[in-house]
């Protein structure tokens, strides 16, 4: 069967009859769960793209009130420590070109460096900053401009890691181009978030929507492990609205039957063992280590560092970029910013005092308002959280 891309997308996007059927299935399982004694069913996602789909297509408003969809750690830009941005700003002013994804261009730093609190500021003030779509484009630009030294900001989760690992492993990187690995791993952060929810005395998470593209690389196995450890089901989901609805229906069914393992809804792309070639490349090039997450601190085994044999490509070594140690670690957020709690699924954007009052997508103060998949940015742009109704009430316009 040869399916065009448009047909494929519409199958999972513009399919109202199917959406209605899946929704009625969700309501059926909601009723069954209520009769079993459930009052709330909390489902957490671990991918910014899932949160985007949820908000953009109004999924929360299609679901019964008892189902609480919560965004967990799913945005690598949001958790990139401020110190890395500060060092990149400093170096951009010293004439070292910084390559950055557009998504992190406006990421704010806590410290002001020569008048700049983001790479976008730095560029406006004369720093050498170039936005790229991929590591490959950075390599091309470095060669074309015949540069002496430049740094690529290697932000991302497991999805992005292989696109750095392949050029490094196959010696496709020109001399003088360095990578600053800020790669982070999703399952350790998911475990950390699930534990935090319990430790804060909040209602526990009943089910997990596992990230489709992270799992394209790592497979479903790590989620299966988490499901068994926490005694809750997980479903690896695709990114179209129908995918997400089917995943939620599947989760409710599994919760009802007391099942704690992983199902794959996004079977058209994700295999149980993942992309083994990508995994091998990651293992060849990077070492797993304890790593800092912005606003949160160090999480065990949650980061990827270049192996010592790739010293020649490592920006940390060449430019002596050091993060504070675990003991020296201080929260690197604006004092009122709730991004850390929002990333861990402990708070919603509307519970932050800065949200849409002073912190907006045009003028972000917290990192969750920057990335197009940061929870605050997604909620702000597509109007999640009934904020208009709340403001109307505050100024005595609404009920």
């Amino acid at each position: 069967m040869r399916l065009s891309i448009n047909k494929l997308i519409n199958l999972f996007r513009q399919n109202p009859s199917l959406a209605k059927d899946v929704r009625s299935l969700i309501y059926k399982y909601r009723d069954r769960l209520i009769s079993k004694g459930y009052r709330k069913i909390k489902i957490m996602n671990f991918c910014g793209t899932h949160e985007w789909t949820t908000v953009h297509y109004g999924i929360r408003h299609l679901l019964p009130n008892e189902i609480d969809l919560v965004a967990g750690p799913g945005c690598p830009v949001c958790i990139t420590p401020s110190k890395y941005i500060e060092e990149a700003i400093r170096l951009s002013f010293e004439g070292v070109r910084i390559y950055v994804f557009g998504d992190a261009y406006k990421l704010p730093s806590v410290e002001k460096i020569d008048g700049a609190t983001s790479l976008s500021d730095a560029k406006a003030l004369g720093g050498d900053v170039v936005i790229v779509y991929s590591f490959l484009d950075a390599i091309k630009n470095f060669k074309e401009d015949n540069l002496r030294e430049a740094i690529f900001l290697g932000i991302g989760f497991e999805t992005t890691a292989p696109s750095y690992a392949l050029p490094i492993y196959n010696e496709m990187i020109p001399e003088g181009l360095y990578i600053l690995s800020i790669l982070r791993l999703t399952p350790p952060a998911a475990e950390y978030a699930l534990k935090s929810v319990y430790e804060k005395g909040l209602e526990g998470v009943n089910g997990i929507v596992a990230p489709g593209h992270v799992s394209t690389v790592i497979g479903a196995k790590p989620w299966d492990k988490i499901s068994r450890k926490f005694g809750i089901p997980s479903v690896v989901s695709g990114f179209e609205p129908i995918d997400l609805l089917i995943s939620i229906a599947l989760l409710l069914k599994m919760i009802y039957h007391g099942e704690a393992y992983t199902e794959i809804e996004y079977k058209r792309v994700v295999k149980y063992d993942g992309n083994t070639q990508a995994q091998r490349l990651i293992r060849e090039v990077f070492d797993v280590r304890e790593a800092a997450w912005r606003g949160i601190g160090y999480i065990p085994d949650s980061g990827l560092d270049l192996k010592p044999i790739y010293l020649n490509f490592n920006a940390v070594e060449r430019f002596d970029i050091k993060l504070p140690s675990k003991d020296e670690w201080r929260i690197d957020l604006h004092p009122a910013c709730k991004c850390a709690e929002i990333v861990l699924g402990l708070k919603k954007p509307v519970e932050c005092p800065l949200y849409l009052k002073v912190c907006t997508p045009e003028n972000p103060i917290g990192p969750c308002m920057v990335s197009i998949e940061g929870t605050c940015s997604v909620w702000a742009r597509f109007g999640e959280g009934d904020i208009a109704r709340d403001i109307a009430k505050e100024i005595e316009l609404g009920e």
Partner: protein
Amino acid sequence: MCWGVPARVLEVGDFLAKVEFGGTQKEVLVIHDDIKPGDLVIVHAGSIIGKIDSKEISRTLELYSEILRETLLRDGVDPKDADKIVKEWMAELTGEEHG
């Protein structure tokens, strides 16, 4: 940031491939053992990280057509008419676009 875009593979080299999405062509890295021209793939940050499995799509389509048929029957549509509607729906979904 883990945004992935479906694309059609046009040419494959050693580490690089040319893909097309929505009329735009782009050179991307190939991080997959089994990619050939014509394949549908997922491209993320300039790399092919996964392949879209047409067998799995067929299975999903069959599942969908079953759900649709059941819904039609529940709504009182004659079984013969329901089959016809499902068939048309499938044809529209899977048929190649022209132009």
